[in-house]
C-alpha cells in the first residue's frame, strides 16, 4: 500500500472516531439490512454531517460535489467507514444508483437539479422497478406512462412493489411502459418522480421480521414532468440496466466489513454461551470466516484494474458470482448465528448485540431473493459466465 493511501486510511478512521460520537454514538453498527428502521431521523442528520465534511459521494467527480477518489481510495473509505461502525446510509440509493446514472446519462438540467441534494444528504431516493408480475422477469413491467398532450407531463398508472425505504424518500425512479402494446424491454421509459403527490400512495409491506423496510407504491394518475425523463422515451431499458450496473460496486467492501462485525458478534456470543466449545459450530464458524475471506478477495479481483492495461476475464467471473456468493453466505451465516444462540434464538433478546444476530437470521432470508433471486443469478452465471443455452421462453 502506498504511503498516500495509508495516510488516507488514517484520515477517515480518525474522522469517524472523532465524529461517530455523542449524539451519533448510538448509530454505531445500526441501520444495515434488516435494521433500516433504526433511528431514521438521526441517520438523516448523520448523512448531512457526513456531507458537511465531504464524505458523501466520494467517488463522484469534483464538479458534482464528489472527491473523485480512485477505486483503491474508495475501497479504503468504505472499509474504514464500516469498520468504525458507520451506520447504514439512508442516502445510498441516491449516491450509488441514481446519482451515477444521472452523471452518465442524465441531462445537464437533471444533474444540476438532483445531484446537489444527493451530495448534501437532503434528498432521498427509492427504486420503482419490481412489480407483482415483474420480479425476476423485469422485462414484464406493466406500469403505464402516457404523455399529457397539454403540458407534456407523463401520467403514470400502475403498481410497484419491494420498494425499499419508500417512506423515508422524497423521490422515486420508475421504469414504466410508454408504448402501449410493447413487450419485454422495448417501449419502456425511465422517469424521476416526486413521491409526495396526490397520485402516489405508499403502503408498507409487513415482512416476516414484523417490520416494513419494503413498500408497495401505487400510481394512480401520478405525474412526472417531461424534463424528468432520463434518456429517450421508449429507451428506458438501457437506463435501467445501466443503473443496475452501478449496483455491483465498491460498497461491497463496506458490506463485508458489516459482515465481519456480525461474525465478531457471533464469536462473542459463542464464547459467552459455551457454543464455542461445540465442534460442529466451531467448524461452521470457521467456514463462515473462510467464506468472508474468499468474498473479500473476490471483491478485490472484481475491482482489479490491470496496471498495464491487460484485461482478462477474471474480474468478470469474480463479478458474476459476487451477489450469489455473498447472499448465500449471509443466509447461511444467519442460520449459524441462530444455532449459536440455540434455545435463546427464539426469544427476542434485550441485548442489542444478540438482537442484531436474531435480525440477521430473519432478514438474511431476503438476501437470496432481492436484486436477482438465487435462481436468476444461477441462470445468469450459466448463460453469461459459462455460455450455456438460454432458457426457452415460450411465445406470448
Amino acid at each position, binding site marked *: 500500500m502506498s504511503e498516500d493511501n495509508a495516510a488516507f486510511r488514517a484520515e477517515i478512521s480518525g474522522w469517524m472516531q472523532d465524529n461517530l460520537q455523542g449524539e451519533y454514538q448510538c448509530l454505531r453498527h445500526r441501520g444495515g439490512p434488516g435494521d433500516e428502521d433504526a433511528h431514521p431521523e438521526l441517520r438523516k442528520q448523520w448523512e448531512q454531517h457526513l456531507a458537511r465534511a465531504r464524505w458523501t459521494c466520494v467517488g463522484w467527480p469534483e464538479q458534482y460535489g464528489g472527491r473523485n477518489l480512485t477505486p483503491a481510495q474508495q475501497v479504503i473509505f468504505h472499509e474504514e467507514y464500516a469498520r468504525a461502525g458507520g451506520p447504514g446510509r439512508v442516502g445510498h440509493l441516491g449516491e450509488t444508483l441514481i446519482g451515477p446514472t444521472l452523471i452518465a446519462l442524465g441531462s445537464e438540467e437533471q444533474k444540476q437539479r438532483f445531484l446537489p441534494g444527493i451530495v448534501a444528504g437532503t434528498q432521498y431516493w427509492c427504486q420503482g422497478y*419490481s412489480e407483482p*408480475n415483474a*420480479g*425476476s*422477469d423485469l422485462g*414484464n413491467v406493466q406500469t403505464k406512462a402516457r404523455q399529457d398532450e397539454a403540458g407534456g407531463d407523463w401520467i403514470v398508472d400502475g403498481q410497484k*412493489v*419491494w420498494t425499499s425505504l419508500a417512506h423515508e424518500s422524497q423521490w422515486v425512479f420508475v421504469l414504466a411502459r410508454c408504448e402501449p402494446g410493447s413487450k419485454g424491454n422495448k417501449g419502456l421509459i425511465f422517469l424521476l418522480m416526486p413521491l409526495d403527490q396526490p397520485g402516489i400512495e405508499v403502503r408498507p*409491506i*409487513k*415482512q*416476516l421480521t*414484523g417490520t416494513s423496510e419494503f413498500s408497495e407504491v401505487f400510481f394512480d394518475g401520478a405525474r412526472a414532468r417531461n424534463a424528468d425523463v432520463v434518456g429517450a422515451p421508449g429507451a428506458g431499458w438501457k437506463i435501467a440496466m445501466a443503473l443496475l450496473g452501478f449496483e455491483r460496486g465498491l460498497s461491497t467492501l463496506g458490506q463485508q466489513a458489516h459482515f465481519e462485525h456480525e461474525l465478531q458478534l457471533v464469536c462473542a456470543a459463542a464464547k459467552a454461551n459455551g457454543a464455542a466449545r*461445540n465442534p*460442529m*459450530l466451531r467448524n461452521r464458524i470457521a467456514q463462515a470466516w473462510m467464506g468472508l475471506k474468499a468474498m473479500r478477495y473476490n471483491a478485490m479481483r472484481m475491482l482489479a484494474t490491470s496496471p498495464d492495461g491487460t484485461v482478462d476475464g477474471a474480474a468478470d467471473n469474480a463479478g458474476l458470482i459476487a451477489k450469489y456468493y455473498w447472499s448465500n453466505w449471509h443466509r447461511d451465516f444467519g*442460520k449459524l448465528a*441462530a*444455532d449459536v444462540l*440455540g*434455545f435463546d*434464538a*427464539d*426469544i*427476542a433478546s434485550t441485548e442489542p448485540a444478540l438482537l442484531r444476530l*436474531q435480525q440477521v*437470521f*430473519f432478514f438474511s*432470508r*431476503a438476501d*437470496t*431473493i*432481492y436484486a436477482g*433471486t*438465487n*435462481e436468476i443469478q*444461477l441462470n445468469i452465471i450459466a448463460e453469461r459466465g459459462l455460455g450455456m443455452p438460454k*432458457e426457452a*421462453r*415460450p*411465445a*406470448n
Partner: protein
Amino acid sequence: MDFALNSDQTMIRDTAAAFLADASSSAAVRAAMAGASGFDAKVWQTLAQELAWCATAIPEEYEGLGLACFETVLLAEQCGRFLLCAPYFATACLSVPVLLETGNAAACGRYLPQIAGGTLTATTALSATGLDWQPGKVAAAAIRQDDHYLLSGAYRQVIDAATAGLLLLPARLPGGETALFAVSATAAGLSATTHDTFDRTRRTGAVKLDQVRVDAGDMLACGEALDKSMQRACAGAAIALAAEQVGGAQACLDMTLAYIAERKQFGRSIASFQAIKHRCAEMMVRIEAARSAVHGAARQAATRPGDADLTLEAACAKALASDAYFYCAQESIQLHGGVGFTWEYDPHLHFKRAQAGGHWLGSSDELRERVAANLLGAI
C-alpha cells in the same frame, strides 16, 4: 412390523386433517398468534373434550383410549401441518409420557383422567435453561418438610408456561438427586411469564418458584429411576415433535407447489422450470425419508424397546425430521420469492417454528452425537 395404516388409523389422520383445515386455518392461526394465551380456547375445548385427542395415548385405566404412540404421531403430524396453536404438544406429547413413564400410580390416577377428559393442560420443565432433559442443569431446589416439599428456583424455558394447569418440575434434593414434582399452576409462590418469542405459534415462558409447597405425594420420581423415565418420556416426546415437523415440512412443500403452479415469470409457470422441479423433488425426498423414520420409530416405540434403542430411534426421527423441516421452510421462502418474505404468506410461520423446535429435545448435532456414542463409544 407392517407399515400400512389400518382403517382406524387412516380415519384418525383424515378426521384430524379435516378438523384442522378449518379450526387451524391460516386466519385462525394468526388470530391465535395475536391472542394473549396463544391459542383459541374454543378450538382447544373441541379438540380436547369432544375429539379426545389428549386421551389417545392414555391407558384405559386412566380413562384414556389406550392407543399407541403411533396414533399420537398421526395426530401430531396433522398438528404440525396446520400449525395448530394449542397446548396439545406440551400436554399430550410431553407431559403424558412423563406421567406414564415416571409411573407414580397415585399421581397418574389424579391427573391423567383430567387430561384425558380435556379439562387439564400440562407442561414439563426439562432443565434450568432449555428444552431438553439435563438433570445436571436443574437450578431449582426442593426441601422436604413433614408431608410436603418446599420448592424454589427457576426454569428459563417451559412450553406453555403461563397457561398450563399442571406443571411437572424437576428440582434438586438436598442429597444431590433430582426429583420431579407435579405442581399446580395455582400454587402460591409459582409465577410464570411468557417470552416475546419469534415463533408465535407456540408459547414458551419462564417459571419461578418461591417456596412453593408441594405435597409429598406429588413427588413423582427421583434419582436414577427419574432419569431413566425422563429419557424414555423425552424419546416419546421427540418422536411426536418429529411427527409435527414432518407435517410442517409437508405443508411447506404443499404451499410451495400451489404457489409456483400459479406464479408465472418469463411467460411460464415457474413450476415448469427444471431446477425448481428438482428442488421440490429434493424436498419430497427429505420429507418422505423423515416420515419413514418417524413412523418407524413410533412403531418401534410401541413394542417397548430397551432404553438405548428407544433413544436411538427417537434421535433418528427427530434429527431427520427437524432438518427436513428447516430445509423445506427455507426452500419455501425462497421459492415464493418476494412474497415468501412477507408476513402475509405462511412460509415464515413454519420457518420460525422449524428453527425453534430444532433445538428442543436435542439439536440434530446433539442427537447425532448420541448415535455416534452408541456406535463408536464416547469421545
